[in-house]
């Protein structure tokens, strides 16, 4: 399952389109505390969070997440939206809670195995 498959699913609002959309997802990962995510987000994860500030983008890029999914209708503030464009990170959005969004990604990943 690739980042592009998440985009194509139509299930998410596309907030920012990143560069490496052919990247394989390793797992969904859920956490809102930045340094916990920094320490534990697996490389290539779809990071599901409600934090849409610029630091989320920095952590996603440095911890090497494949994309960000903003749950609960969370939005990017303007500085974060600029950063997403600059760092070329794919950011998707959903009204769903964190668990439901992550579970859906997980189920799709398993379905394609």
């Amino acid at each position, binding site marked *: 399952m690739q980042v592009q498959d998440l985009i194509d699913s139509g299930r998410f609002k596309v907030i920012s389109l990143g560069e490496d959309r052919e990247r394989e997802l390793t797992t969904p990962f859920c956490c809102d505390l930045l340094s916990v995510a920094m*320490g534990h987000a697996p490389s290539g994860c779809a990071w599901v969070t409600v934090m849409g500030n610029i*630091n989320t983008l920095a952590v996603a890029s440095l*911890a090497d997440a494949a994309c960000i999914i903003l749950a609960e209708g969370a939005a990017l503030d303007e500085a974060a939206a600029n950063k997403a464009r600059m760092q070329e990170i794919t950011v998707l959005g959903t009204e769903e809670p964190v668990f439901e969004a992550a579970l859906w990604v997980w189920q799709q990943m398993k379905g394609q195995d």
Partner: protein
Amino acid sequence: MEGIVLNYTISPDDFTRAGEASSDVKRKLKQLGVSPEAVRKVAIAMYEGEINMVIHANGGEITVEITPERILMILADSGPGIPDVEKAMQAGYSTAPDEVRSLGFGAGMGLPNMKSYTDDLKIETKLGVGTTITMEVRLE
């Protein structure tokens, strides 16, 4: 020894720029062909140190030395210093103020991440004078 030296000045309280030095180092290490695992370790450890300088120490200076053997990060600030280093190193310990906690900081995991993602971490600190953190990631 021949090596590459990079220098960065970190501005205090500027969250819109925080992480830029770490991102730049990440990009340069990638270009140099450093292994993805080592790049990731450096990126994570340096970001935690960089953001700590922004939040806790009024900014500072970061020097990164790259040789084929190792990547050395030296983070020097003139902030308040760390009263109890052992306590600060504990997972979950944080003095982060509420306004940065609301951004997602303050889990008290930054220093533990810096330790676990590097091969060596040294903290020199003096109250009222500042803190210098030296971290090393060894390469093959």
